[in-house]
């Protein structure tokens, strides 16, 4: 899978209240949640996002609450992937489980807002087209690859129990 998009750069410790404030947790609709993504910290973010864009951040992305509405809001506003130096433990699970492409990159400091990135998930390479640079991605462990390949945890479970309903 190849993802190409423009970067929206964020900092360390972006928390789930930043991603989607609790006052919007009265719906489970991805598009509805997407309208308020990053509203508390960057009110113009949603307007600036074009379909396929990429969020790049520092360490501990998605810390705080377990709300799966956070990765849903990111997907819902049109973001195609999140790259960060590390992810909070629950956000990491949620992203795997719902099939939001996310990438751990040891150092994201060389990537700036508005850079155009091309992510090749199969080859494990990110090309920074703007800066003519290439970054290598650590591959996912085999176990997680199986869930990703199934396009999320629910499909993985359905296949496992042969539930084709």
């Amino acid at each position, binding site marked *: 899978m190849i993802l190409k998009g423009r970067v929206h750069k964020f900092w360390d410790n972006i928390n789930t*209240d930043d991603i989607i404030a609790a006052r919007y947790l009265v719906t489970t609709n991805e598009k509805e949640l997407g309208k308020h993504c990053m509203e508390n910290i960057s009110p113009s973010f949603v307007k600036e996002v074009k379909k396929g864009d990429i969020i790049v951040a520092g360490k501990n992305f998605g810390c705080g609450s377990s709300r799966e509405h956070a990765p849903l809001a990111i997907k819902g506003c049109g973001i195609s992937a999140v790259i960060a130096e590390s992810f909070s*433990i629950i956000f990491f699970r949620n992203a795997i489980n719902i099939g939001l492409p996310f990438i751990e990159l040891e150092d994201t400091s060389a990537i700036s807002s508005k850079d155009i990135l091309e992510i090749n998930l199969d080859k494990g390479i990110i090309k920074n087209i703007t800066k003519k640079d290439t970054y290598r991605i650590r591959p996912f462990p085999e176990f997680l690859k199986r869930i990703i390949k199934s396009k999320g945890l*629910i499909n993985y479970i359905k296949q496992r129990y042969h539930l084709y309903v």
Partner: protein
Amino acid sequence: MGYTIAEKILLTHIDKPKSIKPADFIEVKVDLVLGNDITAPLAIEEFRRAGFKKIFDIKRIVLVADHFVPAKDMKSANQAKVLLDFAKEYRIKNYFGPGIGIEHALLPEEGLIFPGDLIVGADSHTCTYGALGAFSFGVGSTDLARAFVDGRCWLKVPSTFKFIYRGKISNLITAKDIILFTIGKIGVDGALGKVMEFCGPIIKGLSMDERFTLCNMAIEAGALTGIIEPDEISFDYIKQFKTKDLKLLNELRSDSDAYYEKIYEYDLSGLQPQVACPHSPANIKSVDKLKDIKIDQVFIGSCTNGRIHDLRIAARILKNRKIKKGLRLIVIPATRKVYLEALKEGLLDIFIKAGGIISPPTCGACLGGHMGVLAEGEVCLSTTNRNFIGRMGDPKSFVYLSSPLVAAASAITGRITHPQEFLK
């Protein structure tokens, strides 16, 4: 090499028990699965959309309507109804409707948590139950939907950080100060994905209510969970419920040759009450450095500090005193049982006469839901767990986190205040 208590619990919850080591991926069998009125509707939707029909064990599912209840608006009313309808359809015994309690205060109180249990909950503060020597952690709604189906959950085996606390602390220092101090030292990702095992003489001396506070905030250091080895205090607590073989509990100890990735040792002698400043639970200062901070609202409650012990210590300060004119004091007992006990002991009387507002049990104010939402520019001193931007309301409001003692003292003066001004 021996095992930590956390690893021992994992070993008893996998098929074909063998050896495990940090970073292994395993699938654990869970003893209890928890969801609330925010996270469960999403799980229920996924469960239905996937076409699942059966739940693995209706006795092992707990659904709690606690976040936006009694419903704050039509949308949250509908979400709460999704929860209730699902509970009815599947005859889920452990459904707790509005006002019964905040999940993490309620479940232990209901006797649903035992040492050695493995619990997953679609709420980040599920780590609270480590206080009883259970292995419990927060998951997402999809995890919840999956656990409904087969009672299992995937997990990357975490390594453990050990935290040892010694020294002589004053009676104005609470578990909240200890955990805030710790998060201040290691940062909001200081224990990212790890187990925080809390031990040492100071921890041994904490009551159950305080231990819940301590483990509750492990997530705020990025940890998967926090845990305390069960001892007489936790045994006493669980004895009121059904009796598992207490002898087995003695095996719930970390081996002397267990592997710890890091060991932190703190001497807390002379520690002052701690306050987390905006906008991070790791932005910690001693209370005496903040005496010029004026506040508009004080909130005492939540899964962190809404238990009877918390209300008792706050009432000690507020007894026969009045809060600062113009300030709002909101007190929310975490469960109905706490509410009734506070009523019986006259604590609610003290809060109301001091000028406080009492609300039925709800998470509400902690996450800017209802019952205490902040306006632009307002400052709140709260006994909750997070002070992120906009956490309790307007993105331009400010939240400080503290113990109930500091919160009560500050409600009287209208600025952040050391409880020693009112208690010796």
